[in-house]
């Protein structure tokens, strides 16, 4: 925490001094001091709820501190909004890219700041010249005439970064930039960001992936509970120390018992999904999940995971293939029937599908089980039995709540997800399809949910785990099946699962 006095220091490109932001009783940012040196890469790490996003919003002008101030070029500054921050050279790459489908990459690059010729026509040559200049600075080559929707996700991310440069930003704020990338693409991004730094740009990025932080950042600031707990140069930081600073205590990784997989519970053969336009979303996928094992599905987002999940729960249309659950052909039966045969489904989209946020916590806990004999008799709900069941179940899953009759929206993200997990593991299903089970959950919640999945497996449950978190897949899976472009490109057993190999498979590479 080598923060000097508030003397004017132009080497500080962007910073915060005593920034405090409260939301009701919650102090999201508590007297935050930090400085980003011009021409450096600065990482902000911290668990969910540590205050990273709030700080970024303040540094980008989307929010204003209750106390303290933002520092620009060593002097106090007030951002009236994101446009004002941009005028001072600060631009942000959001997790959801802000590119326009239907336009080419070049059009997206110059959008709203097009070089124009006579009669306002876009000067394509000038735009291309600007694009190739940016390519040179960033050390990349792009096909600028590609339509936005046809460009792979890492290319879109590069366009998003170059667009900020095109419009004159020299401070780039990136929010979890590697979350959507495969390992090889992460390396490319790291190289690109380093090149930009060497060109004199200042980069500030949020991450919770410590390996990437250590590979990329010059300076690392750790947030916990809204406070800066440390700020260290890369040379003084190591992974274990950063993890300890982030969490405040040492987390024990769940011990995986050697899998004792039994007979096949879920078998899928030749699953093929084509959408209305004939695009193949899933192609000839074979899959088997046995009793007492967790099978992970790895892949860059959008390579068939969604189609696979919809096919297994029966909400998507299957073009070809066959699915059996515990020996019963479920290919053409609806989700209610699949659930009664022992299927359980943890949705990746907690807010829209995994829970009904407007309904009470209790309603969310029993939905889908509400016609079970112990909760319902002759179509009439047994209210006392339901109340006892809900309280017992939520206590077991340690869901922090003041009353189960409050809306589910009143819970924190981690506790919401625990409600969904509790519900889906209730009633001892035989097969659980778990999609992004810990998305948006803090690090302690993640550990808890991981333990729930492992316990379920050890009780003989079969789990298909679809996740974008490679770490999660490596921690939990007995086998990892890799999807690329709707096809299975390989399978890696526990033990010999190397990040490099999985990464290669995620990008379509064969078994090297």
């Amino acid at each position, binding site marked *: 925490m080598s923060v000097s006095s508030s003397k004017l220091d132009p080497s500080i490109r962007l910073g915060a001094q005593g920034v405090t932001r409260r939301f009701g009783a919650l102090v999201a940012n508590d007297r935050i001091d930090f400085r980003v040196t011009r021409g450096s890469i600065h990482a902000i790490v911290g668990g969910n709820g540590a205050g990273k996003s709030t700080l970024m919003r303040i540094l980008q002008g989307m929010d204003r501190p209750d106390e303290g101030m933002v520092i620009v070029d060593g002097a106090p500054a007030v951002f009236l909004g994101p446009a004002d921050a941009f005028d001072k050279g600060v631009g942000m790459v959001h997790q959801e890219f802000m590119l326009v489908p239907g336009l080419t990459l070049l059009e997206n690059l110059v959008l709203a700041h097009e070089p124009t010729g006579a009669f306002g026509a876009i000067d394509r040559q000038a735009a291309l010249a600007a694009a190739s200049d940016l390519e040179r600075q960033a050390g990349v080559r792009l096909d600028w005439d590609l339509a936005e929707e046809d460009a792979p996700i890492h290319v879109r991310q590069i366009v998003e970064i170059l667009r900020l440069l095109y419009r004159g930003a020299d401070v780039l704020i990136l929010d979890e930039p590697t979350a959507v990338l495969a390992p090889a693409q992460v390396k490319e991004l790291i190289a690109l960001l380093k090149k930009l730094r060497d060109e004199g740009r200042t980069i500030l990025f949020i991450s919770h992936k410590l390996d990437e932080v250590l590979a990329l950042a010059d300076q690392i600031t750790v947030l916990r509970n809204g406070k800066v707990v440390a700020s260290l140069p890369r040379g003084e930081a190591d992974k274990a120390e950063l993890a300890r600073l982030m969490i405040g205590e040492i987390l024990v990784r769940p011990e995986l018992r050697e899998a004792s997989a039994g007979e096949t519970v879920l078998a899928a053969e030749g699953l093929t999904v084509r959408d209305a336009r004939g695009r193949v979303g899933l192609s000839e996928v074979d899959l088997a999940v046995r009793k007492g094992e967790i099978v992970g599905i790895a892949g860059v987002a959008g390579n068939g995971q969604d189609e696979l999940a919809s096919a297994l*729960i029966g*909400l998507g249309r299957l073009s070809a293939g066959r699915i059996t659950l515990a020996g019963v052909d479920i290919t053409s039966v*609806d*989700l*209610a029937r*699949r*659930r*009664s045969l022992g299927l359980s*489904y943890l*949705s990746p989209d907690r807010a*829209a*599908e*995994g*829970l*009904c*946020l*407007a*309904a*009470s916590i209790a*309603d969310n806990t029993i*939905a*889908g089980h*509400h*016609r079970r004999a112990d909760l*319902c008799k002759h*179509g*009439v*709900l047994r*209210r006392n039995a339901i109340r006892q069941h809900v309280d017992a179940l939520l206590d077991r899953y340690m869901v922090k709540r003041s009353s189960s009759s409050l*809306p589910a929206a009143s819970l924190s993200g981690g506790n919401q997800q625990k409600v969904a997990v509790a519900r889906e593991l209730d009633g001892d299903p035989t097969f659980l399809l778990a999609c992004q089970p810990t998305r948006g959950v803090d690090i302690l919640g993640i550990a808890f949910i991981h333990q729930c999945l492992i316990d379920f497996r050890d009780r003989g449950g079969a789990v298909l785990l679809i996740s974008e978190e490679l770490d999660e897949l490596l921690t939990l899976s007995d086998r990892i099946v890799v999807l690329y472009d709707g096809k299975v490109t390989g399978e890696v057993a526990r033990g010999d699962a190397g990040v490099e190999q999985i990464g290669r498979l995620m990008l379509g590479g064969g078994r090297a």
Partner: protein
Amino acid sequence: MSDHAASAAPPTRFPWANLAEILTPLLLALAAAGVVLAVAGHNPFEVYWLLAVESFGGTRRIAATLAASTPLILTGLATAVAFRAGAFNVGVEGCVFVGGLAAAWVGFSFTGLPAVALVPLALAAAVVVGAFWMLVPGLLKARLDVDEVVTTLMLNFIAISLTAYLVNGPLLAPGSANSATPMVAEAARLPKLMPPSTLNAGFLIAIALLVLYWWWSNRTALGFETRIAGTNPRFATASGIDVPSLIIRMMLLSGAIGGVAGGIHALGTVGRFVSGFSPGYGFTGIAVALLGRGSAIGILLAALLFGALTTSGATIQLFSDVPIEIVNILQGMVMIFAVARFGWIFARRRRA
């Protein structure tokens, strides 16, 4: 449309919260209409006192208010049932027409039957025809995602015109010049509760259905599923609830209750079917369901409010120089404030 319906059918179960939700738009409407009255040279407090006396001051006035509320309880209930499942059914008005005609037809055709058989038969006909009237919009919404607001609204015009044609042609009372069916048999009339008021057994049926609705929506598995499906259909689907089938069933139920509203109006109040049978009961029912926030107690209070405004409006101009238009303005204001509140919730949901 599920977002609309969700706010009409909240998971709250506390009657007091509902009461506050009904009273707020009412008070705002009274205040706004008070300004209109004052500008027009009337003392708003005097007018409101007069309205209160005319609707609740004495047994006969109360009976008239309850009689006016009866069809509104039923149409409000019919609308709320569909809202609850996420279907924004605005076609209850049409169900009132076809249900009313069906009940009247049974009532004047099977004149030999005793009351114990004829009344249930006539109401059953209203139920069947009303439900049938909502079958096509229900199927279209559930299976093809066709907007039910458009289909049910259009079906209203068809219902009104179709019944008008029938009572001008095939079902016209012999020797009658105005478009009306023959009077139903005396055995088909619903017994009057407090003669000479038109308050009849239909009010008791409406209250019974309201109690049933409260029990169904809060205590049964089907009511639970309907509420979840109306609030978040994706979640309901992922939980294994068959949302399309639920929507069809609730649309049928909505149509059936709308048909009963028409049947009771025909057998209890009018005694036959006439063209222009309903003065917009189905549309007022939408306001009742919205204002009552889809809860049983809320629907009852909202229906009583609109019933009171109707009865007092009819007589107020006899005793004062306040024109009936003032009462219409007041009714409209209540509706606007009820719906405005609802639009605010809708906007907040969209942002969330």
